[in-house]
């Protein structure tokens, strides 16, 4: 009936009044907090200005002694930082460096070939409950598992050393092949055939003598994965070639065995120049 309706309206009005009061309270609170923020900011700015003034005064007044003391302390610190950075760089340049982590050590093996720094590879090694490799960025064709099975548990130094040898040799072989492709592409016929480990290289190249070019083919096998020079070289020319060419083939074979690939080709072009 009407009374019930009136009751309902009264209740609604009451609710609305409560809500309004609540909003008002919140707005008041917000305004107070804003004012407080302003106050604190002003205070902060005052204190900052005061501190700067004091510092300036100190510098002007304080005399040479405090100045020097401050300076020397700072310069000692800078010197320390510099020498630590240099030390870390030296460690990196030696090829094997590491950093302690929460659960073990993170090793960094950097590779280089004859003065050129190449890629670096990382290993996260855990020391508890036993020494194991948690994760790494070593290429899959490097026999990491084999090396780890042999040395990781017993002699971690040896493990790192052997792994470093493998990685450096691989980097060196790859570098030689890349250099060959980059700088002597005019002498190479077709493409240089290699595999992931760069331990088998097959290519055809031209040798020019007496203004004639002769095709040669070379096959280099790198039996020792820790070595960046081949263990076996087969250089051949066409079957019915003159004897002088066979001599050249033998000579080249010898050069490839002793010298880096791109340097060998360098020596060929030098020899050619001296001949012509």
């Amino acid at each position, binding site marked *: 009936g009407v009374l019930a309706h009136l009751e309902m309206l009264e209740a609604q009005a009451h609710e609305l009044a409560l809500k309004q009061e609540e909003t008002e309270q919140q707005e008041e609170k917000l305004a107070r907090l804003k004012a407080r923020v302003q106050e604190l900011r002003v205070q902060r700015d005052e204190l900052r200005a005061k501190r700067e003034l004091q510092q300036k005064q100190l510098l002007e007044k304080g005399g040479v002694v405090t100045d020097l003391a401050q300076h020397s302390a700072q310069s000692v610190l800078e010197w320390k930082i510099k020498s630590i950075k240099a030390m870390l760089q030296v460690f*990196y340049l030696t090829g094997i460096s590491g*950093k302690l*982590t929460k659960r073990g050590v993170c090793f960094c093996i950097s590779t280089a070939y004859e003065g050129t720094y190449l890629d*670096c590879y990382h290993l996260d090694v855990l020391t508890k409950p036993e020494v194991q490799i948690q994760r790494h*960025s070593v290429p*899959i064709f490097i026999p990491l598992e084999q090396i780890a099975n042999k040395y990781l548990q017993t002699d971690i130094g040896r493990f790192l050393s052997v792994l470093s040898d493998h990685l450096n040799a691989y980097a060196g072989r790859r570098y030689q092949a890349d250099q060959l492709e980059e700088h002597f592409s005019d002498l190479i016929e077709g493409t240089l*055939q290699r*595999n*992931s480990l760069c*331990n088998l290289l097959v290519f055809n190249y031209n040798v020019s003598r007496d203004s004639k070019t002769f095709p040669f083919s070379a096959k280099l096998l790198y039996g020792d994965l820790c070595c960046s020079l081949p263990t076996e070289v087969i250089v051949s020319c066409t079957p019915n070639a003159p004897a002088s060419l066979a001599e050249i083939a033998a000579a080249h074979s010898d050069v490839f065995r002793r010298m880096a690939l791109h340097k060998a080709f360098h020596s060929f072009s030098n020899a050619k120049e001296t001949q012509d």
Partner: protein
Amino acid sequence: MDEIVAEYIRRTVLKIPRDEIMTVLQKWGLLSETQLQTINFRQTKDSISQDVVQLCEENSVDIKQAAVLDIIYNHIYPNKRVWSVYQMNKMGEETDFFDFTDFKKKFKRRLQSALKNVTINFREYEDNAIWIRIAWGTPYKKPNQYKTSYVVYHSQTPYVFISASVLKSNLPLLCQALVVASNYHDIREMELRSHCLNSLKDIVFKRYSQNFQTYYPRQERNVAAENVDLRIIQENRNEKERIQRVNREVFGDGPQPKLEFAQYKLETMFKSDPKMDVLETKEPFRCLVKFSSPHLLESLKSLAPAGMADAPLSPLLTCIPQKARNYFRIRERKGFLPGSFVSP
């Protein structure tokens, strides 16, 4: 020229986007430059493909040469296929020289001794990737060029990427030929599948960016240029920075490998309020959870910074690249079950 070959070439050319047809044909090298110049690339693709077939007629292209066109197409557009990763196992420790010619010979011999009616093509690429295309026939029918499997293999690695086609029954044959040719012992399928071949390679070859703690070389972290409005004060700057740090530790700095889904098969017991009395049986509640995304790992990486998940994320999600799997089976007690080793 065979009708089958002509039709095959026509259909292959139709698959190529119009702007790329010239490049692909040049890579193929079967048609001379003068011949290629005669094609009008502004016609409809239908007409272009007809022109190409005509020119191939002049050159009497055979099925093996046409197959090379298919390899080139698939090499440029590998993401049209789904690739699975297989892992091979070797017993001994001998260093392998891996001779490509030797590999080809052994593979062909093994496969053809079991099934004569196959078309096998090999193609080597500069990144040491070997692409193998196999068109399957039956003992009584010639190879069907539309039923092909693709294999991508990097020498001296234990991983093979296979995109089989409809004919799953030929897979054991293929696996056996691979094992024999590459001097391995056995092969098993990994729980890793995706459309993006390069990302699968990144994951198993560990070419994706992992965050290693080192002192040197110091990589300059590119600090995101935050809008330096001094009036904006980050209330939870510490929390934001913590999330960024944790995220970086887990995902690394670089781009993530591209996967489209991760699937978790739950075989765990349903734990409910005993009062609810939902399941009377003591059997595991079978449930399959599948996450799909155009780029799953990037989206997982952005979950915590976007405020949609807590950092660190569940290791079930973050272990995907490291465990090299995106199919998981979760059992009750200890966690995940690695795939079982099966030799053909």
